[in-house]
């Protein structure tokens, strides 16, 4: 591969990883163009859509264009940090293309920061903490801890089976809310269960797409911003459907 070809290929890989790790569009463009420049391209233009990253690089009258499929679905901020350091190191220490490629392979294959079981447990704890913030008592908090933990596992399992967000989020919200609502019903908590129900599906809040969508709108990447906010709206709507079905079902329980 030529020098310009390496610059294009490695910049695209950086863009793909930023996109897959929860970076907003400006960040993806910034990292791709800085990487291309650090690897010797005189000029570069990155184009980011919700499902692709593409780039054209120029050097001494020659130009190359290529693209990759990369949906902005994942979240891994540790990877974002590693990519930020890689781009800075390439600029400051003039890393060669093969050095950058090795570092990218390490980043792509880096281990999870936290084991899955601990993340699920922490999400249950977060849900219980939300319930406490909303004024729930100890029994209701315990229900939310259980519900959030179970709902997080349901979402994790369904996402791993590549089901659409609507199905995964609705099922997770239903599981969590049903455990809280049914538990509250059988324990006779009455209206005390309301703060717990409000907290039971908040582990599904699409914080990253909402904030990245806002960042995209504020940096004039309107199309990507609208796509991210539409995705957030679908997730919030799906959580509302799961919560509604669970509450309605518990209302008819004996």
């Amino acid at each position, binding site marked *: 591969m030529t020098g310009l070809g390496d610059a294009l290929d490695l910049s695209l890989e950086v863009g793909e990883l930023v996109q897959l790790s929860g970076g907003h569009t400006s960040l993806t463009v910034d990292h791709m163009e800085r990487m291309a420049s650090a690897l010797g391209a005189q000029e570069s233009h990155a184009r980011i859509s919700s499902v692709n990253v593409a780039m054209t690089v120029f050097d001494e009258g020659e130009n190359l264009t290529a693209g990759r499929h990369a949906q902005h679905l994942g979240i891994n901020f540790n990877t974002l940090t590693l990519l930020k350091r890689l781009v800075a190191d390439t600029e400051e220490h003039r890393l060669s293309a093969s050095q950058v490629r090795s570092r990218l392979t390490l980043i792509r294959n880096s281990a999870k920061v936290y084991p899955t079981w601990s993340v699920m447990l922490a999400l249950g704890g977060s849900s219980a903490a939300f319930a406490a*913030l909303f004024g729930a008592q100890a029994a209701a908090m315990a229900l939310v801890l259980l519900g959030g933990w179970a709902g997080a596992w349901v979402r994790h399992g369904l996402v791993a089976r590549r089901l659409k967000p609507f199905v995964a989020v609705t099922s997770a919200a239903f599981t969590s809310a049903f455990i809280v609502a049914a538990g509250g019903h059988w324990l006779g908590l009455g209206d005390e269960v309301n703060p717990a129900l409000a907290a039971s599906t908040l582990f599904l*809040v699409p914080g990253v797409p909402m904030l990245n969508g806002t960042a995209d709108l504020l940096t004039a990447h309107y199309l990507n911003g609208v796509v991210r906010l539409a995705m957030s709206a679908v997730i919030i709507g799906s959580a509302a459907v799961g919560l*509604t079905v669970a509450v309605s079902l518990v209302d008819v329980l004996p």
Partner: protein
Amino acid sequence: MTWAPSLWAGLAVLGFAMVFSVPRRTLPGIVALAIAAHLVRTAVLELGAPLPTASFVAAVLVGLTAALIAPRTNQATPIYAFAPVIPLIPGTYMFEALTGILALTSSNEADSAAIVDTVMVDGSIATLTIVALAVGTISPTLIVGRHLARLVRAGPSEAQ
């Protein structure tokens, strides 16, 4: 001002930070920032500000702090900017709006006007608060983030 409830915000942020795969060493800072943001929002609420305004002030604090800390610690800015605002999400208002909509399906005509009022008020507060949180967090990192990063890298003597 009661500060104890704000400690729950520190626990609430933990699960989200782990879902976002933030580096382990950043967790204490994220938890501290979430607690500080909740305290600031509570203080501004006690001064009489509405929830969206108080949430905006707290979110700007988070965004500014993230823009300052991230380059100093050589971390990606979203690590400090995104998770700490999650505990400020107005879950109860969202829930009240949703249950109000459900109640409309089974209410009689006399009750429905009051329920529509509640749904509109709660829905508006929830929506405006979420917009305030998003804009408040993101704006500082976009507007002053680069300048702050340059100042931090340059050090105080060069920055003058």
